[in-house]
């Protein structure tokens, strides 16, 4: 088994934390994030040795699986409250983070995926479209809708994202 998966553990050690953070933003839930990541890593492991760019593969699985789950069920209900876990001593910063997390959780999964791809993974519209398997136009409209929704959900916050939005 070890030869079949040579290098897999090292890959997870190196890139797993970053992928877990992307999964967390996609799901807005720690447990769901780990579940999603595990599922994507298992798929990567099944093809290990045949993947030329494993991180790109895992990342694509994360996004497509998350969005396809949403497409399948369309039953996601926005969370009513944010997790009551404050890990920072800076209360204001913690509140801001949890408020943003709450707002992210209220976005439809497709919009959430676009926000994470564009503003966390820093992909261009074309790259994001390729990951999600949708048109650039869809990415643009989803981005616009997501930011509008975030502005509604966070009326006291102004986003300095303009440069990224127009990339």
């Amino acid at each position, binding site marked *: 088994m070890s030869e079949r998966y040579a290098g897999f553990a090292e890959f997870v050690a190196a890139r797993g934390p970053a992928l877990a953070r992307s999964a967390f933003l996609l799901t807005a839930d720690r447990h769901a994030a780990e579940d999603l990541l595990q599922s994507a890593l298992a798929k990567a492991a099944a093809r290990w040795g045949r993947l030329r760019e494993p991180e790109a593969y895992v990342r694509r699985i994360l996004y497509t699986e998350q969005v396809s789950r949403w497409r399948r069920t369309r039953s996601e209900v926005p969370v009513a409250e944010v997790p009551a876990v404050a890990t920072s001593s800076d209360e204001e910063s913690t509140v801001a983070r949890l408020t943003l997390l709450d707002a992210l959780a209220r976005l439809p999964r497709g919009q959430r995926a676009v*926000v994470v791809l564009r503003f*966390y993974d820093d992909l261009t519209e074309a790259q994001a479209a390729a990951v999600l398997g949708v048109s650039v136009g869809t990415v643009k409209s989803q981005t616009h809708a997501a930011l509008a929704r975030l502005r509604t959900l966070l009326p006291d916050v102004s986003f300095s994202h303009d440069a990224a939005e127009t990339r």
Partner: protein
Amino acid sequence: MSLDLRDALHELATAEGPDVRPDAWAAEALRRTERRRRHRMMSVAAGGVAVAVALVLALPGGRSTSPPVADAVPTIPAVIPVPSSNTPSLSDKPIRRASMIVTLHNRDYLVGADGEGLRAAPYKDPSFIPETVNGRKMGIVTPVAGEECSAALSSDGTKLAWLPCGKAGSWTRSPATDVRVVTLATGRTRDISMPNPPWGRQGVQLVALGAQLSWSPDGSAIVVSDANLAIMADLSTGRTRRLPDGSGGAVTWSPDGKTMLVTDSVSPFSDVAFLVDRAGKKLASLSLPVVGHSGRVTWFWGRDDNTVDAFWSQGSKHELVTMRRDGTVIRRLPNPAAINSQPIGWRGGRLVLSLGPSAQKPGTYVGLLDPATGETAPLFRVPAGLLCSGYATGLVATASIR
């Protein structure tokens, strides 16, 4: 307040994201992959067997044995096998479903429902144990008598849920806040967080002692209850709902999965129970129609959606009482032969009961009680020393005994 969205997302993901545990992620991914690979190989082999069987049947005079097809009728051994030191773990040799949990020397085992024999329960298996819970590192310690894990099989036997054990089991030295659910066939695990579980507040010693798990018949929900509180978790949404105050002890579900029968933990001798719907609304209260007793009462759901039953005993008096949902008594069966036994479920209109050992018959029998006559008949035997601690009730109702 001005916020750079990029910076804010990075800060959010770093500060609030999952604990970093790449070793566990890699190990879990490889375990799942290997399990799928083994299943594919088994499916190919089973397909080959099916083709071979079909060819044999096509030949004149051909005879067939039962092929191990996926949807075969589940089976229960006529005598439950005794685990040995060579009993494989679930991760070593996966099974698709299990009929029951048996305990030997404080260790739990699953009884395969397709003739596979026993598997060690996964909550003592390192590959099913999280590395940390609530930021605290977990490890395995030697189980202690009387502090076994609380675990339950889904009605169809395909899923197992358990509460993290206290110092008795695998998740040590941390109050339990999650129910872990594993799908036997795939090894996929899922944690359901419970809001402020009382067993968590009370400390690790109480984790395994009082809490009980009760699956809905369709496997879509699970209730965790202890002496004075019950919480229902909807597995499709992950949401939890606290059942009305006073809920406690074992919870049983109506066959249609719409209503729960909950023992009133406040009532002395548990002679009061109530019906609760899935929204957590109390529908009706039921009282045992026996005045002034001080015996023990076991409430459980009847053979259909409209009846409930209660065993009660006091001294030499024993009775099985059947009543409608509104509390109207339908039948009182005095001194049934299977008194002091634990109800498991229903099978063909007869009550499945775990019958305790006696001086004449060491070991345990699982038998059937005919409510019309009060007579019992054996179903299968559990050897002395083994304890059955959970059943896949839907599977027990239909399984073939071999």
